[in-house]
């Protein structure tokens, strides 16, 4: 690791003039999106769905990072865990933002108005692809995300007061069950809300594809937030080179993982060459969607891959532009998934897309900042904290007989 790193923190930025931005985003974006719903309800629906899936990525990506932190009993990520927990706790917000999609589902998803008797692809998916199941599955998804994210944050905050190792064990148990529920619900969400736009299609890689892109973008964002929080003060003394280096390395890993997953999905369909599968990509090779596909190959994979390849890149200035680039690429990637069915002629950046993104960005940032301000900025009494700081504290050896009963030895 080289020495020209974020550890030599420059003075805090003056962010006071940015304070009104979330409110402005909500006001302007909300107004335009609301108007858009009357101008062209279908365009509004697809724009909203695109923006929703985009911000859901942060929430799920963050939940995944928290789950993984506890499952691996990681120490390095303790100082960044709190704000990641706050992002994961956006689940109820996402549930509220889902309401327009729930209302417009009949218009957005062609399968909802299709007759299973005449549509074999629909009949084959019957127990799942019915209108009631759509809502039940959506409810299950949001409930589980809300349950695990809020429980994990609850015990984390509890530990701030008590410092008890019991909280760590509780969180670890939650994470071990949660990761399975997470995998199932994320798959259901990705399939029901995004893939079902073309329900005739099937790909077992699809949910993993959404997952890989989501975690990738979340990691880039976590890096940026950690950097800003360090520079502005709250995490000044606790986030070090190690944390940045590891987030950067994970980002690099997910750059490759995303490419691997998306390539595999394409390759299997390309190789199998069956009309039931190829039609999805054929639609996306027409018009300017072809160019979007190329942008994904070179911009979503090659560019970040080559930029992040060097060991010292993870600590260099290049990380900030990469984070912004990751948002753009993930947006384009989701657009590539959602929009071709509505704009088969090619990529269109509609003003309603921007309005919905702006509105949700405002909401999400506001809620995040509110929860961040309401709680300690990092876990205060986590038993792994000193380890994360690279400080060795010799364990206190308690003689066997004086050990309190009912306490599990670690």
């Amino acid at each position, binding site marked *: *690791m*080289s020495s020209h790193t974020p550890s030599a923190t420059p003075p805090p930025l003056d962010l006071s003039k940015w304070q009104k931005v979330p409110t402005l985003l909500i006001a302007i974006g909300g107004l335009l999106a609301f108007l858009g719903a009357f101008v062209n309800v279908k365009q509004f629906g697809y724009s909203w769905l695109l923006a929703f899936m985009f911000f859901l990525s942060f929430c799920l990506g963050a939940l995944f990072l928290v789950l993984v932190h506890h499952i691996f009993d990681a120490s390095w990520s303790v100082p960044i865990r709190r704000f990641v927990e706050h992002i994961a706790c956006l689940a109820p917000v996402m549930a509220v933002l889902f309401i327009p999609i729930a209302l417009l589902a009949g218009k957005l998803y062609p399968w909802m108005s299709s007759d299973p008797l005449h549509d074999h692809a629909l009949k084959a998916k019957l127990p799942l692809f019915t209108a009631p199941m759509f809502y039940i599955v959506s409810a299950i998804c949001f409930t589980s995300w809300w349950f695990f994210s809020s429980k994990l944050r609850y015990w984390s905050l509890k530990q701030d007061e008590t410092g008890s190792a019991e909280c760590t064990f509780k969180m670890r148990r939650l994470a071990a069950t949660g990761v399975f529920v997470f995998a199932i619900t994320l798959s259901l969400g990705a399939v029901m809300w995004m893939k079902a736009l073309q329900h005739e299609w099937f790909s077992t890689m699809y949910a993993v594809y959404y997952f890989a892109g989501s975690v990738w973008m979340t990691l880039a964002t976590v890096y940026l937030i950690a950097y800003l929080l360090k520079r502005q003060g709250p995490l000044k003394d606790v986030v070090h080179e190690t944390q940045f280096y590891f987030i950067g390395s994970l980002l690099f890993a997910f750059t490759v993982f995303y490419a691997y997953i998306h390539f595999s999905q394409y390759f299997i369909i*390309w190789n199998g*060459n069956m009309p039931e599968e190829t039609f999805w990509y054929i639609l996306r090779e027409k018009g300017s969607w072809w160019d979007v596909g190329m942008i994904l190959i070179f911009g979503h994979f090659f560019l970040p891959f080559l930029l992040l390849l060097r060991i010292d890149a993870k600590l260099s200035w290049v990380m900030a532009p990469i984070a912004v680039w990751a948002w753009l690429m993930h947006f384009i990637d989701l657009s590539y998934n959602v929009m071709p069915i509505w704009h088969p002629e090619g990529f269109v950046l509609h003003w309603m897309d921007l309005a919905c993104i702006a509105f949700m960005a405002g909401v999400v940032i506001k809620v995040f900042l509110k929860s961040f301000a309401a709680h300690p900025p990092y876990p205060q009494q986590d038993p792994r904290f000193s380890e994360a700081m690279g400080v060795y504290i010799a364990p206190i050896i308690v003689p066997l007989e004086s050990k309190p009963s009912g306490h599990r030895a670690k």
Partner: protein
Amino acid sequence: MAETAKTYGLIAEFETPADTMHAAERVRDAGYQKWDVFSPFPIHGMDKAMGMKNSKVGWFSFLGGATGYTTGMLMIWFMNAIDYPLVVGGKPMFSPFGAFPVAYEMTILLGAFGAILGMMFLNRLPRLHHPLLKHGRFSLVTHDRFFVVIETSDPKYSELEIRKLLEAAGSKRIEVVEE
């Protein structure tokens, strides 16, 4: 051969990784260039303590990988589209998608070769003999001792200065290594 033995350098023995690390920092700060640290296991942070830059091995593996990728693509293109055109599954004679898995494997293979050969080249391996191997106590480096060696070829080499520096760093045993 009874010529007067040439000196290879000075070897200082240390007993703990922490002492070795601090000694390395002192040697680094004194501005020596031709020196090295030997330990039974990797010590985290030693690179920094020695003031070492990023290893150059990465460039060899990158070049190896790039060569492997290109070779794989060209090989399949030449074989399937030029030398012996073969239609498989109604696909084009050559497509980067079909060729990718093989090209990818070639990337990994030649990338690994690049890393191994680059490492050996940079370390001047294989070599059959090294002056340190003649030094009696040096074999302890595979057991529980740590060594700092400063070579005579260092432009700043001066036996007196180095002895002073390493003694101050806490070494109890400083000896001359003969070529």
